[in-house]
C-alpha cells in the first residue's frame, strides 16, 4: 500500500475530463477478446466455478457441502481462487484489510485487479486509508434520514409496476414473470432518479451490469457500447452545468479543497449504478420466490405489521444475494488453506448467513427471528453504503406486492423454470408465477 493517511487524495483539474484506466489495467467493461463460456465443473472442492449455471441453480447445496466438509474450496480457474464457506472465516477475512485487498472484488477470467489503494470503483475497490475518504463522500446521500425522503416515490413506482403486472396477468391466465415485470425495475428507477439519469435507460444499465457481474470477462463488448462511454457523456454535461443529482454532486465534490480525479468520479458513479441494481433486484426476487412457495408467510405478512422488521432481515439473511471477493496481499493461512499473494478469495456472505455455528436453526427460514446478526451487507469497513436504500426498497416492494396480490404461486413445478443469476450476485432473473387473486393498487 503506497499512500498514507496524511497524503491528500490525488486531485486533478476537472477540465478535459476523460476517465481512462492505466494501460496495464483491464476494465471489465472495455472492449475485450472474451475468454468464452466455461466448461462444466469436474469437482466442486478443487475446480469450483460460480459463473456456471449448475452453481447458480444449486448454490445453497454447494455452500452446505463446503461448510460441513471442505471448508475452503479451491479452483485453478480465474488464475486461482478460494472459497471459504464458514462464517468465522468470512468474518475474519472481511476484517483483515492487511492480508486481503479490495483492489479486485469481482473474480474474473482476465485477472483484472486494480491499483491499491484507490482501485477502479472507489470505495468498493479501495483499501485504507483512501477507502474512508471515498466512502465518506457517499454516506450522506445514503443515510437513513436521506433515504426516508425517497420512500414515497419508490412506493409509487411499485404501485405503477403492480398495476401493469396485474393487468398483464389478467390477459394470460394469471401467469407473469415477477422478476422481469416487477422486481427488476424497482432499483433501476430509484437509482436512475438519484443519479439523474433517464429511468427509461434501464435496459442499457442491465446490459452493462450483466457483462460485468454475471459473465465477467466472458462476453465481447463493442468499443462505443461501454458503460464508460455512456457515463462520460452524463458526467461532462453536469460538469458544464450542475443539476440537483448525485452525478453533479460527485463531479463537483472535493476533499479538503482538492477536486476528485476524473477516474474517482467515474468509478464511484459506475459503482452506484452497478452495486444497487442486480443486488436489490435479487433480494426482492428471492423474497417473492419464497412467498410464492410459503403461503403461510404471505398470510403472516398481510396480517401482522409487527413481524415486518424481523421478516425483512430474515429475507436478507436467508437469501443474501451478494458474494464479494478480495485479493491476497501477503501469504496467509485460512482454516488450513495456504493462500499466496495474487490469489482471489471469495467472501460468500450468503454461505456465512446459513452457518449453524453463527445462527440457531441456520438452514431454516424463521420469519420472526429475533437474533439475527446477518452479514448480507458485508462486515467491516466496506459495509454496504447503500444498505439503508436497499432495505427501504425491499420493504416497500414486498409491502406493495403483498397488499395487492392476495394469493400467488410458482407457475411451474420444474425448478429450472426459475433461472438464477450466475456470478457473485445471486437471485432469480426469470420467475414465472401464477397470480390467483389480486387487486390493482390506486395511484397515491
Amino acid at each position, binding site marked *: 500500500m503506497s499512500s498514507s493517511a496524511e497524503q491528500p487524495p490525488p486531485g486533478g483539474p476537472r477540465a478535459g475530463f476523460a476517465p481512462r484506466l492505466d494501460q496495464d489495467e483491464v476494465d471489465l467493461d472495455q472492449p475485450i477478446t472474451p475468454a468464452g463460456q466455461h466448461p462444466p465443473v469436474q469437482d466442486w472442492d478443487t475446480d469450483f466455478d460460480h459463473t456456471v449455471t449448475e452453481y447458480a441453480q444449486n448454490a445453497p447445496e454447494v455452500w452446505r457441502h463446503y461448510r460441513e466438509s471442505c471448508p475452503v474450496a479451491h479452483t485453478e480457474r480465474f488464475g486461482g481462487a478460494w472459497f471459504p464457506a464458514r462464517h468465522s472465516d468470512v468474518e475474519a477475512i472481511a476484517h483483515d484489510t492487511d492480508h486481503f485487498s479490495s483492489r479486485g472484488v469481482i473474480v474474473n477470467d482476465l485477472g483484472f485487479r486494480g491499483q491499491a489503494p484507490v482501485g477502479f470503483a472507489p470505495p468498493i475497490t479501495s483499501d485504507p486509508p483512501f477507502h474512508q475518504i471515498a466512502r465518506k463522500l457517499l454516506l*450522506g446521500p445514503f443515510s437513513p434520514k436521506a433515504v426516508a425522503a425517497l420512500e414515497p416515490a419508490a412506493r409509487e413506482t411499485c404501485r405503477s409496476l403492480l398495476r401493469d403486472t396485474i393487468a398483464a396477468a389478467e390477459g394470460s391466465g394469471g401467469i407473469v414473470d415477477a422478476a422481469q415485470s416487477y422486481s427488476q425495475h424497482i432499483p433501476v428507477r430509484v437509482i436512475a432518479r438519484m443519479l439523474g439519469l433517464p429511468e427509461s435507460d434501464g435496459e442499457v444499465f442491465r446490459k452493462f451490469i450483466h457483462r460485468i457481474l454475471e459473465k465477467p470477462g466472458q462476453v465481447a463488448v463493442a468499443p462505443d457500447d461501454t458503460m464508460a462511454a455512456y457515463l462520460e457523456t452524463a458526467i461532462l454535461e453536469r460538469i458544464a452545468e450542475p443539476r440537483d443529482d448525485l452525478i453533479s454532486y460527485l463531479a463537483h465534490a472535493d476533499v479538503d479543497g482538492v477536486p476528485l480525479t476524473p477516474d474517482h468520479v467515474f468509478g464511484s458513479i459506475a459503482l452506484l449504478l452497478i452495486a444497487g441494481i442486480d443486488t436489490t433486484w435479487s433480494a426482492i426476487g428471492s423474497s417473492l420466490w419464497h412467498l410464492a412457495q410459503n403461503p403461510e408467510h404471505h398470510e403472516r405478512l398481510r396480517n401482522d405489521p409487527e413481524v415486518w422488521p424481523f421478516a425483512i432481515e430474515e429475507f436478507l439473511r436467508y437469501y443474501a444475494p451478494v458474494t464479494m471477493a478480495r485479493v491476497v496481499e501477503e501469504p496467509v493461512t485460512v482454516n488450513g488453506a495456504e493462500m499466496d499473494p495474487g490469489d482471489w478469495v471469495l467472501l460468500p456472505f450468503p454461505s456465512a448467513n446459513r452457518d449453524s455455528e453463527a445462527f440457531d436453526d441456520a438452514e431454516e427460514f424463521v420469519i420472526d427471528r429475533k437474533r439475527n446478526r446477518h452479514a448480507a451487507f458485508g462486515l467491516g469497513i466496506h459495509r454496504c453504503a447503500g444498505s439503508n436504500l436497499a432495505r427501504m426498497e425491499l420493504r416497500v416492494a414486498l409491502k406493495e406486492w403483498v397488499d395487492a396480490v392476495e394469493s400467488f404461486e410458482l407457475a411451474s413445478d420444474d425448478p429450472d423454470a426459475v433461472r438464477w443469476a450466475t456470478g457473485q450476485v445471486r437471485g432469480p432473473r426469470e420467475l414465472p408465477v401464477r397470480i390467483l387473486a389480486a387487486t390493482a393498487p390506486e395511484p397515491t
Partner: protein
Amino acid sequence: MRIQFERDACQGHNRCYLLAPEIFDVDDEGYAVLRIDGDLPPELEEKGRLAADNCPEYAITVID
C-alpha cells in the same frame, strides 16, 4: 441495565436504529449515536437486548 456502545466497532448497519430508535439515533453519515447513557428505563430493556443481539459488528453490549 445499561448499554455499552463501541463507536469504533460500529460500521453503520443501522440495525439498532431500526429496532430501538428510543435508544439509538443515527448521525448524518449513518453511524449510531447512543441516546441513553445511564440505566435504561425498564420498558426499554427488551429493545436494548434486541439491538445488542442484532448488531453484526458486536458494537453493542448489554450490562446488567
